[in-house]
């Protein structure tokens, strides 16, 4: 009897070991542990074993059953695992094949630049506002200290609609609109389109400016310079250098132009910056007290600064756009490069 049990154990384990699939393994289970299985029959025949041996044989039979059951479940796990591995192997793909589904599009480079610029300014406490592009002569010129027939009008070629209505030639119209509407202290930026009767290889009749205005007590050139420095750093990186030149705008006094390291050549000198390593980025200045007074702000108490860069050129250099015409041509081959 004992010998028989040992044989069952040896044969059973060997067969389990040899079995190659789940079906075979199940047949082995039935053969030994099934209702009519070899071990089952032995256990059923225990009544024929001498009572003094029963305990020993019983214990052996149980241990054989346990060993077989363990063997079976271990093998089962192995076989199941092997099957999963085999199934997965069949699903193997060529990972270099193209992806499926909708491919992301892209924002226009100007929007990306504007978004970044706005973000910087909002963090500095500026509110973003926008206003009309078809504008009255008053907001575009007169209230900015450029009366009719003033020589400063020659600085811009304006598109006129009637004697009094025009396409705004600068976002500075928003300075006046803000000053009329808002109570100091305030800080605003106004990104927007402007129009000039001027078109050649480096000018577009429609381009974009980014006006900023601060009106508060104690505002001066130092605040302006510190802010512009920070903006340049955020827009163009830590290594950007700035250069300040005096200039003239009727609505600021003092007026300045700010040049920054040319982003096309990183200051080495190129055709865009005419070899100077710098390109003009901002027109700026301290708000002319006459302009404050015209808009009903007490120039004794308040002062301010304004700046208004044209941003198309900055968008060009930061994205290495070869030609200004690309900005409005909307060639999908160009736009795709902005993904």
């Amino acid at each position: 009897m004992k010998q028989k049990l040992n044989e069952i154990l040896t044969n059973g384990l060997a067969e389990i070991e040899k079995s190659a699939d789940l079906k075979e393994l199940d047949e082995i289970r039935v053969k030994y542990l099934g209702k009519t299985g070899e071990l089952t029959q032995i256990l059923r025949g225990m009544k024929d074993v001498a009572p003094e041996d029963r305990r020993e044989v019983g214990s052996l039979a149980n241990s054989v059953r346990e060993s077989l059951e363990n063997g079976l479940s271990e093998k089962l796990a192995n076989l199941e695992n092997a099957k999963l591995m085999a199934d997965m192997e069949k699903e193997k793909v060529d990972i270099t094949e193209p992806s499926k589904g909708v491919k992301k599009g892209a924002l226009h480079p100007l929007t990306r630049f504007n978004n970044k610029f706005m973000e910087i300014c909002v963090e500095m406490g500026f509110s973003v506002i926008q206003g009309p592009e078809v504008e009255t002569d008053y907001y575009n010129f007169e209230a900015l200290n450029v009366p009719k027939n003033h020589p400063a009008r020659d600085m811009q070629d304006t598109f006129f609609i009637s004697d009094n209505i025009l396409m705004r030639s600068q976002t500075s119209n928003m300075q006046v609109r803000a000053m009329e509407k808002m109570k100091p202290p305030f800080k605003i930026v106004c990104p927007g389109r402007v129009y000039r009767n001027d078109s050649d290889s480096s000018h577009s009749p429609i381009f974009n400016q980014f006006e900023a205005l601060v009106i508060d007590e104690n505002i001066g050139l130092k605040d302006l310079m510190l802010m512009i420095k920070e903006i340049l750093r955020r827009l163009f990186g830590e290594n950007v250098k700035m250069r300040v030149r005096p200039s003239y705008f009727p609505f600021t006094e003092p007026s300045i132009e700010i040049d920054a390291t040319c982003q096309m050549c990183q200051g080495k000198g190129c055709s865009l910056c005419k070899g100077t390593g710098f390109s003009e980025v901002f027109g700026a200045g301290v708000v002319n007290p006459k302009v404050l007074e015209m808009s009903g702000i007490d120039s004794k108490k308040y002062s301010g600064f304004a700046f208004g860069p044209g941003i198309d050129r900055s968008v060009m250099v930061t994205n290495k756009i070869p030609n200004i015409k690309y900005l409005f041509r909307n060639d999908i081959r160009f736009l795709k490069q902005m993904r």
Partner: protein
Amino acid sequence: MKVSYNWLKDFVDLSDLKPQEIADRLTTSGFEVEDVIYLNKHLHDVYVGRIEKIEKHPEADRLVVCQVNVGNRNVQIVTSATNVFEGALVPVSLDGADLANGIQIKPSKFRGVLSDGMFCSGEELGIDDNYIEGASVNGILIFPKDFVAGTKVEDALLLNDVVFDINVTPNRPDCNSVVGIAHEICALYNKKFKEPELSYKTCGGNVKDYVDIKIMTENCSRYCGAYVKNIKLERSPLWLRSRLFGVGIKPINNMVDITNYVLIEQGQPMHAFDYKYLDGHKICVRQAKKGEKIAVLNGQTYNLDEDVMVIADQNKPVVIAGVIGGVNSCIGADTTESVFECAVFDLKSIRLTAKKFGVRTDSSARYEKGVNINTPSVALKRALNLVDKLGCGQIVDGIIDQVNSKQKIGASEKISLSYSKVLKILGVSIAKEKVLQILNGLGIESQINGDVLTCVPPYIREDIKNENDVAEEIIRIYGYDVYNNVEGTMFENSSITIGQYEPRLVVENGLKNILVDMGFYETLNYSLYSPTAVDKLLLPENDERRKVIKIANPISEDLSSVRTLMAHALLLDISYNLSVGNKDLRLFEVGRVYQPKELPLKELPVENNRLSIAVCESGYDFFQLKNVIENLLVSTSLDYTLERSKEPYLHSGVSADIIAKDGKVVGWFGKLHKQVLKNYDINQDVYYAELDTDYIAGLPEKKYETKEVSKYQAVERDIAVVVDEKITNGELIAAIKSASGKHFYEVNLFDVYRSDALGKDKKSMAYKIVFASEEGTLTGDEINSAVNKVLKSLEFRFGAKLRQI
């Protein structure tokens, strides 16, 4: 404004300053030098030579060999020129010369005979007959006999000069002159200004006996005149011609050259009349009368009216004041007596007149920028000084000086300012002594007592009125470099403000990002378009959007109207992309349309912000576009329904208007009308959509409020019903929803099927209805009963028949 280095030297000592250095310093102080032109750039290695001997070339009939003395040595020149002769003084370019027409000189052999260089024509030196006689002949320039062999040609011709082209800003009209720039240089380098020579001899008499001058218009504030007789009209001396040549003015004759010289040097436009043509010997400054005409020096004849100011004699206009002289009284070969004019005209009046006739002269350009009321008397004296110096006539005693202004001549206004405010504007500390040095150096007599800064600007400086003006003067001379390394905190002494975005920008950005995620590319388009756009987009005659604002001075027909429609631009983009072979286009634009209330425009138009979308992609259909719209709008709180679109440029059967709860059409989408595609040369289907982002931005922010979800599994039932073609999905869905009872959860169309077997104009619509309960799992009976109710309702309302799936 062009001024030359040598000319400036008349007024300021420049011996220690190189031209480039001056140019850089002027630029950093507010006078941007756009160009530094070396007049002798092409004259190095060119000398005055005297031809000693001319012999025939042994090998060539057309060439001669010349022995030429160029000072301390002789050179041999082979030439084909025929106007040379022994003893002639000529320009000789030698080894290394680089002439104005691009020729570079090297010694070389001509048919075996060495030539050390080349004789030059006027053209090769960059000059013509106006500069020196003989310079325009077809041959070699023969110099006057008093030229000395061996002299450098640049010295002999007085072309060793450097011209600065300066961008003078409109606030500094005083610097449209050599003396103005000289004053600036004096301030920059702390130098003393040398006053111009103003003295002259007179021949007695009294100017008032010769001419009578009257100002009869508000537009003339001062008019000075002088009388010169026994005029010898001739070429000006070379020194004067070289000055005018350098700044780009053509020398004509001594009298005219003097007026131009004074214009450049003093910034005062002048005119010289031929006295004998002034009827009644009267000069009257007045507005023209309607019907008057004048033939002027540019060859045109203009009809005048009351808006034009003229200088007239007793009978007729003789000059369009400040703009251009008439041919009836100008200096000519027979002029023997002349009246000089130095006047101040209103800049607006001159500007309007110059614009009206489209004539822009050196004179009008100066007047438009503003001529100071103090300038005419100085300028006139300077002109008379030159008349005397050049010996071109006799000056009658006296100057007529008519003033028609409240402004005092020669008076400076004293202003009192807050010194601390000036410092606040600057924000950097500059020593008080330095401030005073700068201001006084600029001729602004200044004192500081406590906080009071007292300034007396020179009378020529009308731009200095307040603290800001003075701050600018200080810092532009002190140098803006001080800010390059400025440290500290911005807005240190000011308030804290909270930054925020205009709400529409936030909405637009959200929509843009959704589109980008769905594969769209953002475009940027001109908001000006061709007036034909409204036709190409099939707008009916009564469509409001046909009211288009027109630009009065457009750059081109294509950019002559302010757009009232977004679709045009994206269609042009698609057309362009297809034309260069680009495919699969998903584009959008965020922009504006500008709708006037009435034309001609009386008030500003409504500027409405829009999002426009266009797709041109094979296999794309209406429902894909609808999905885009739904994905965009689900991010907003817009409650909307769809109706068949009324947009004329959309395909009427494959398009929808988006209607807000208040009935407003806030957008539309669909396939483009086939005629529109033709109009834009697009040969495949395009899907287009537009949303009113102003309307959407005006909606309350979308609130997300959630409900409990059932813990029991939902049960799905599929039904398919056959209905008439005209019954819409929308109607069926609504009916299903209302008939499904309290456990209805959702319903979705999952198939539409048409076949002959179903019958003509019939379709099968298959729906998945989902039932769910929060109280427990639904039983089969409950669901069957609900489905039966649905089917009965559909049959009753639409004649729908159940189709076995």
